[in-house]
């Protein structure tokens, strides 16, 4: 049985010095495809960069609930639903933070994330310390760094009291890159917090 599909064939070679029609067409075709490629790439890049937004895009004022949840002199865990969310986020939208009610209308609201690498810090009311389970960062009650690898104190949210409710300005995972926006300058009512206030 002979079943030959391929057969040796000889292609005529072009003279390289001559600008032939087929080479001109090929070059024009390559150029055309490059233009189409850029036309496609532009929306793709825009699509990929969508999450990169300005600082104010993600953040907004969120209520942590009535003030009476936060007795003066105590530090309590509060949770809120992140304002920027998708229906398929599940429980990941729920965010925790530590609220320290100093006195009167003076508060400190700390991010749950350690300033070192973002692990959840835990408050120990007896020793009045925050401890991080990952690399052993420890912070004082006012958020100031006590020991361990963090370079700075705990991240703080801006807050305000509206209609007997505590509101914070939040929406992003606090990191060293956006921490400046989370710091509260001269608003903590606690002069001991010099390092964490910048």
């Amino acid at each position, binding site marked *: 049985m002979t079943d030959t599909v391929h057969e040796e064939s000889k292609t005529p070679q072009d003279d390289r010095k001559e600008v032939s029609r087929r080479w001109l067409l090929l070059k024009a075709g390559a150029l055309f495809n490059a233009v189409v490629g850029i036309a496609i790439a532009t929306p793709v890049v825009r699509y990929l960069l969508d999450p990169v937004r300005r600082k104010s895009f993600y953040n907004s004022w969120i209520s942590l609930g009535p003030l009476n949840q936060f007795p003066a002199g105590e530090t309590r865990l509060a949770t809120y639903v992140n304002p920027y969310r998708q229906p398929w*986020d599940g429980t990941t939208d729920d*965010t925790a933070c530590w609220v320290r009610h100093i006195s009167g209308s003076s508060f400190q609201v700390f991010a749950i994330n350690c300033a070192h690498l973002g692990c959840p810090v835990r408050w120990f009311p*007896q020793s009045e310390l925050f401890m991080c389970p*990952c690399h052993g960062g420890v912070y004082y009650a006012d958020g100031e760094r006590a020991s361990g690898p963090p370079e700075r104190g705990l991240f703080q949210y801006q807050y305000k009291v509206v209609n007997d409710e505590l509101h914070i300005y939040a929406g992003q995972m606090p990191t060293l890159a956006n921490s400046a926006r989370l710091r509260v300058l001269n608003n903590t009512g606690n002069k001991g917090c010099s390092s964490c206030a910048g």
Partner: protein
Amino acid sequence: MRWVKQTYNWLESRLQLEGPVKDAVLHPVPRNTASWWYVFGSAAFTLLILQIVTGILLALVYVPSAGEAWNSLNMLNHQLPLGWFLRAMHGWGSNFMVAIVLIHMAQVFMFGSYKYPRELTWILGVFLLLMTLGMAFTGQVLRFDQDSYWGLGIGASIVSRVPFIGRSLVHLLLGGPIIAGATLTRFFALHVFIIPGALLLFACAHVWMVLKLGINEWPMPGRAVRRSTYIAEYNKLTHEDGIPFFPGAFWKDLYFSGAIIAAVVVCAAVFGPYGPSGQPDPTIIRTVPKPDFFFLWIYALLAYLPPSLETPFLLIAPVLAIAGLVALPFMAGEGEKSWHRRPIAVLTLVTVAVIWGVFTNLATYTPWSPKMNAWSSDTVPERYLHGLTPVERRGAIVFQAMQCRNCHSIGGQGGERGPALDSVATRLTEDQLIRQVIQGGGNMPAYGKNLSPSQVTALVSFLDTLHPHNQPEAVDSAERAVTTIPAETGAKSSTKVKASASPQASAAPAGN
């Protein structure tokens, strides 16, 4: 059986694969490369295929949604028949793959295989290692549990340290402002499409080059690589002392790959799947996140780096390490291949292996982390409480209640962040203890603000009892002088002169 031959011929005349396959399979390799040392590359490729197959099978069920991923994994573990086994195969296959790729790399480094003309094979190998590690990390993310969630947090925190564009990079990494649904879907795309696609492509190019350039000959001391002569020498070697790759060398690859897959099956069956641990709910903060085995060394490194060095190290060291690996075949493209003549290479490999092993081992018990429950779960050993005064006993209670135990062990139980305190009284005098408690220092928080003066007195008096019976308490040298004078004059007094500064007095300046 004529129809088999006819079908084969029909296919072959169209596909025309026989020639290239025969070339590849029967190409001569140096006789001494048919060694058990040369089986790791093929085993890594076999594991890649295993990961692709088990991965596709898991993708039939897994839901890449932040709201459902964790549930679908639990469904796989507990409800789907043998779903747990497939997850275990994929998890253990991943561990084996990273391990085999690392061993393969160490082997080709030791054998000088990266030298001329196999530079590009090595460089592709470096990227294959990076992609394998990328698969391991993204795979850990897809196991969307608490470790995965906080592991992403650590990743985002590292990325945030990049100057100027850190914030944008965090948003790109997470797909938004927080770890949520968009984060999981992009890591799913990375783990299932982007990295495996590139990995497969690179692996095929890697194998192609091994076939085209020939497998590296067994390194012999004195047989140095020179660009001008190597190709001719290698061809001479394969033709004079060569055997066909199949079956001469191939049978060992076959056995080893089979053994590795069997080992994955045994591990999967005996140890079961990895997690998922607790659900990825960031409001559950009673968690102690930990990375998977092959990232433990980074976890340890991040605990031990001085804070000021951390950001430069995190951003510069990986670039330098990758650049170094890529540059290696260009820096040392010629010369001796044998490890007998390459002491620096041997020392480098041993040093890296020892450092890696030490850091990994440390990260298995994390001595740098406070034990979050030690204060409430570990009791003060009874023998430390015998014959104590009420004040000293109160000190023991302060010791427990103030979480000292989270960082300091006594009786072998408690944290290891700070020193064990079983014999602290032999090291520190009462004054020094007071100062240490109130002012902290040396990685200990200052407790001056958090303890009342009476608590400090009680705590220090308890700590002062912590010394073996046959060892005296530490005494200030000045005090010793005071106490020894009466002894020399024959007086019976051996009572220790108490510290002049009371805790109350020293608490005030320390409280700032």
